[in-house]
């Protein structure tokens, strides 16, 4: 080892919301665990919630995801990252809400084949970057199934009666496509892009939706979490920046 150059942990001159919000357990990550499907609940024509019993689940924070693996008889495997929908609790269960993706081999299995008692494998939770421990005011913006990790945060906020403010902006094509429609409360603003209930305007997420939330100016400022397609994430994050949200207080999860 040379003494000519001894940096402390290298940090670039510009920073975004580094580092992760939590330390990630390296051991829990490494193990595949059997998850047994216990319940299927339909949310919309395209989306359903799948509840699993996962013995020895390491626990998660709202916003984290896991990797799920299905194995065919010939040993072929398919794996996908999915956000966790349920709030952390000690029930030994977790929930995922999955869209039925056209031609999707994993979501297709869940939506056409899966039934309670089936077993899959999961690994995680993974990544602390999009996690919300419940410590900072949270401004959540999601579209379509992008609402899933945000709902974990909303549920956590309610179940623990957390004192920090939390606001949710959800964009859906129409009321029929709105996941968790019955669960939203006063914290939520709904945006419908194609058709809306009577008396509710139709239109894309806009500066007018974001401005009143940023104007609330909670102590310490908002930590913003954006989740959805790449196109939505680009649009929503640009609106946030233009409205004055610091770029290093915006965390983005894009669906690939």
């Amino acid at each position: 080892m040379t003494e000519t150059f001894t940096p402390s942990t290298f940090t670039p001159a510009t920073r975004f919301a580094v580092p992760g919000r939590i330390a990630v357990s390296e051991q829990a990550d490494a193990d595949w665990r059997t998850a047994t499907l216990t319940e299927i609940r339909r949310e919309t024509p395209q989306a359903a919630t799948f509840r699993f019993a996962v013995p020895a689940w390491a626990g998660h924070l709202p916003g984290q995801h896991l990797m799920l693996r299905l194995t065919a008889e010939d040993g072929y495997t398919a794996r996908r990252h999915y956000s966790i929908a349920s709030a952390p609790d000690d029930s030994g269960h977790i929930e995922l809400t999955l869209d039925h993706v056209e031609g999707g081999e994993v979501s297709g299995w869940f939506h056409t084949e899966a039934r309670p008692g089936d077993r899959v494998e999961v690994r995680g939770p993974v990544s602390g970057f999009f996690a919300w421990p419940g410590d900072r005011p949270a401004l959540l913006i999601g579209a379509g199934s992008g609402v899933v990790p945000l709902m974990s945060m909303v549920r956590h906020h309610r179940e623990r009666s957390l004192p920090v403010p939390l606001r949710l902006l959800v964009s859906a094509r129409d009321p029929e496509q709105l996941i968790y429609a019955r669960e939203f409360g006063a914290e939520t603003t709904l945006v419908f892009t194609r058709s809306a209930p009577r008396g509710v305007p139709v239109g894309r997420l806009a500066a007018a939706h974001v401005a009143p939330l940023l104007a609330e100016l909670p102590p310490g400022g908002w930590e913003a979490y954006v989740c959805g397609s790449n196109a939505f994430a680009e649009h929503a994050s640009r609106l946030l920046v233009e409205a004055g949200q610091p770029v290093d207080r915006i965390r983005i999860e894009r669906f690939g």
Partner: protein
Amino acid sequence: MNVTRGFTGRPRVHNPGLPPGQYDAGDDWPVLSAEVTPELAPADWTFRIDGLVERPHTWDWAQAHALPASAYAGDIHCVTSWSKFGVRFGGVSLDAFLDMVRPHASATHAVAYSHTGYTANLPLADLTGGRAWIAFEYDGEPLAPEHGGPARLLVPHLYFWKSAKWIAGIRLLDHDEPGFWEQNGYHARGNPWAEQRYSGD
């Protein structure tokens, strides 16, 4: 082996170019950056190499383009399990930049960092020998901002989170220092053929 009842999966295609656990994303090129896509014009872009080098240096857009052009045609692999085949990037081999700064013999690792503050750590050996590029073009067109334009690091033999978008610089070190995803539980090296996805793999 824990067989999933009723799961058959997509038709088996023997593809020796597909690392374990990956699937062919076809024409899709998902964007998975965790930060806001920066508005970075070529005129504002710079790239610096420093740390354990004889002559730290910063290139601007024109100076970087004055180096010999070099292309990559091949495949890329994302840790989220998609792979993309037959991509074509244009840019400059990282060797051309490293030749100018002359790394010290003590340099073993690197931290690549972006104009957004994103970081990724790599062994220096993965950045030399014609296996890493600074890429400006994709498929003959300027690299799109959401894919890291105007310039990104390209290290296609490792999972793609190592190929830092909006590349601002590389610092050479005599030790490994975890970057953004590596601090969030991902593997220090990220070799797709050894399926090094998470720390512990």
